[in-house]
């Protein structure tokens, strides 16, 4: 029995098919290959995949329980031309956000030039006064960005939100690829897929570049809140693949504005901290005094220039969803370029006219809290109950600054293995960008998240989502170091357990 592709009735853009049974050009070879595989084989491969993930502890913690982040067998493909456009658009956006943060915590020229009211920034829950005067050595506040993209009904990519605090999920990109090459090597044979395991090296280079200038050979560490964090698996994977220490707050100590880690041979200096701890918990002297996962004195050490913290303090103002509505203006203002990627149509509720209009048709909009992440607090108007809409209306009227409204977009769909059929499910894309101070590099691909429930529009691991391996197909030259083997190579090479290592994770409480 060959695979049955369920019809897509969602009205959304279908990533694989331009019409029923007519795959788009980039999917042609893949579609033929997939049709040759009997359903029971697909199922058994899917089971093999999930068992591998569980045994290796590729999980995220959700409500106190370790769960695997389900990987769908059907990968998402992006062609070279489209990727080129996306990566330039993402890079442009990150450069503009970087300039904006430097301005907000520095001269504030953008306020003087009235591009964005100062009050919008200072009223953001993530605006961080202690960050004023903390100047990064190489000017980089966004070492890592995760820019969430969706493809709308017309097939155009647009930006849904920016994540420049502690974006997570890259470990799944790495781990998904590893699992796919192991369980489904044959699929890779006919495609030149850009590798993704170069990411840790790029990140480490960027972190080293951000070290205080006086340090010749900086010591870089990953700071994690600990094993109970949803993204702990990712912290481990990154530390391991970068070959650096994974520390917790209690491993670090500040003295005379310098940071040290406690080792069996005494204390050793630390110069760059890739922190995966939220601002609020980072330094009990500056933020929440009850934090036990932070390091007392860290902010002063950063201000004194003895340690670099990535991502920067107070970056949350740049991914505030009200500030998001101004990002296209930032691109024009700082870079003097036109935005390559549009925002989703968004309404600012701090304007009384807009507010009145939106609350009277709340069911026609998607309502989002400005500081939410990971799908938290989002109300999808057309799908919401009457009670929820009323409650949301009250909340919005009480504090309009804390909400935005967006036009509901039917996220594009992608064929996904559901039981014994392949059915369309909504997806998004989170590419990851790394800024080393000279260049913003975008990891080819990114995390494609899929909402496994039929018609479900919120794509998130904590909402029962899954993910897909995302292939950026090179149509010109072979990638410098290809994950796909030459077709003559025996498949066994991929099943060699020595090639297995490590693990990875989704985005729960991180971003």
């Amino acid at each position, binding site marked *: 029995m060959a695979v049955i592709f369920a019809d897509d009735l969602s009205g959304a853009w279908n990533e694989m098919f331009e019409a029923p049974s007519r795959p788009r050009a980039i999917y042609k070879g893949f579609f033929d290959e997939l049709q040759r595989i009997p359903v029971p084989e697909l199922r058994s491969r899917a089971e093999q995949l999930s068992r591998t993930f569980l*045994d290796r*502890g590729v999980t995220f913690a959700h409500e106190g329980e370790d769960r695997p982040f389900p990987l769908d067998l059907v990968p998402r493909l992006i062609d070279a031309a489209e990727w080129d456009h996306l990566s330039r658009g993402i890079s442009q956006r990150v450069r503009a956000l970087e300039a904006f943060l430097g301005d907000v915590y520095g001269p504030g020229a953008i306020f003087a030039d009235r591009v964005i009211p100062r009050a919008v920034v200072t009223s953001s829950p993530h605006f961080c006064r202690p960050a004023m005067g903390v100047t990064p050595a190489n000017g980089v506040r966004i070492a890592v960005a995760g820019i969430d993209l969706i493809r709308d009904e017309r097939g155009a990519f647009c930006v849904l939100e920016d994540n420049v605090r502690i974006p997570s999920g890259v470990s799944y990109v790495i781990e998904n690829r590893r699992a796919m090459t192991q369980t489904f090597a044959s699929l890779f044979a006919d495609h030149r897929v850009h590798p993704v395991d170069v990411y840790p090296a790029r990140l480490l280079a960027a972190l080293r570049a951000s070290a205080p200038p006086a340090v010749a050979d900086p010591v870089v560490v990953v700071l994690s809140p600990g094993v109970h964090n949803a993204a702990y698996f990712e912290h481990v994977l990154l*530390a391991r693949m970068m070959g650096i*220490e994974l520390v917790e707050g209690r491993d670090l100590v500040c*003295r005379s504005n310098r940071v040290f880690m*406690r080792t069996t041979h005494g*204390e050793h200096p630390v110069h760059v901290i890739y922190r995966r701890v939220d601002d609020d918990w980072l330094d009990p002297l500056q933020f929440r005094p009850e934090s036990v996962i932070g390091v*007392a004195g860290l902010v002063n050490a950063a201000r*004194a220039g003895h340690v670099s913290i990535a991502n920067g303090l107070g970056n949350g103002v740049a991914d505030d969803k009200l500030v998001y509505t101004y990002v296209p203006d930032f691109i024009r203002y700082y870079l003097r370029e036109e935005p390559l990627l549009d925002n989703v149509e968004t309404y600012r509720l701090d304007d009384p006219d807009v507010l009145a209009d939106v609350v009277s048709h709340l069911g026609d909009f998607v309502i989002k809290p400005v500081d939410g992440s990971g799908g938290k607090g989002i109300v999808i108007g057309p799908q919401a109950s009457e009670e929820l809409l009323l409650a949301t209306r009250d909340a919005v009227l009480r504090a309009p600054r804390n909400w935005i409204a967006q036009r509901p977009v039917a996220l594009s769909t992608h064929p996904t293995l559901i039981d014994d059929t392949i059915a369309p499910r909504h997806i998004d894309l989170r590419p990851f960008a790394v800024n080393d101070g000279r260049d913003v590099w975008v990891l080819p691909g990114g995390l494609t998240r899929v909402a496994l429930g039929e018609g479900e529009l919120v794509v998130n691991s904590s909402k029962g989502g899954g993910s897909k391996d995302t292939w950026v197909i090179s149509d010109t030259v072979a990638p410098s170091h290809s994950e796909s083997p030459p077709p003559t190579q025996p498949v066994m090479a991929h099943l060699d357990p020595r090639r297995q290592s490590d*693990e990875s994770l989704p985005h729960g409480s991180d971003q």
Partner: protein
Amino acid sequence: MSDRGMLSRLAESLYWIGRYIERADDTARIVDSYVHRMVEDPLNNEDAACRSLLSILGLEVREDEQRTVENTLEVIVYDDENPSAISGALRGAFENARRSRDHISSEMWVCLNTTQLRLPHTEMNARQLGPATYLQYVRERAALFTGLTETTLSRDDGWQFLMLGRSIERIDMTARLLTARLVGADHAPDWLALLRACGAMEAFLRSARQENQSNEIAAFLLLDRLFPRSILSALNTADACLVELHPSNERIASPDLARQSLARARSRLEFIDPANMIEQLPDLLPMIEETCWQVNDAISAKFFRHVNAVVWSSEGAL
């Protein structure tokens, strides 16, 4: 990073992984030999034998309660809240491995993770078919972990801490086992079963003369230089680890409390006349248990707890 040590927290985790895995393994062996004896010898007093077993493992025994094999196994084998029980020790190893996951090899991690994942199923089977399958599973997983450690972990400081933990636990468990034989002789496994519990049966038979067997066995478990589970051998291993962890180039080294304790215990053992081993056990065994405590505390103080007073006054002054 052996030139600059390793994170204290990681060192502590590795030390405890070593201890917990050894504990699970040794406990499984001890329980196995006890259960075996109770099955073989129906005249044995079940309550007393169970009490003896519980006391070896340092578990509290309530006077008013009738101990049966079943309720004893609940406490010693299946209780995952209690780090002295097998399940609890495995969980302890797992939790510590989670915290040091970036430091141990992936294969070691996968081994402990899958051990943990399959434990409930193994337990379910064991409750129907008897504890042997469970005990066997634990010993096999411990052996697998030991093998993976051997082949996939660099001989850096982390390795030394793992070996150190394993050695200290081994000394402690062997001493406990001998103590049980000494104080609860009627219910404890006989001397040969005790050898079996240490996995030492064949090694002993090949090495020993056969007269006055109990004395020979005691001497073997305490003093044999070649058998890795003997107390002297484990003391030597622990000392070697400490030397590696803190090589000293000074001609007159500052005192190292852990090494001092080990040296005291070793010299006591070295000066013993093996011919009267049994008579000396009542003095030796408490001394050895005391040594384990001292060494554990000294290692913790030296390597795991670098607590320095926070210098508040200098914070914020730029």
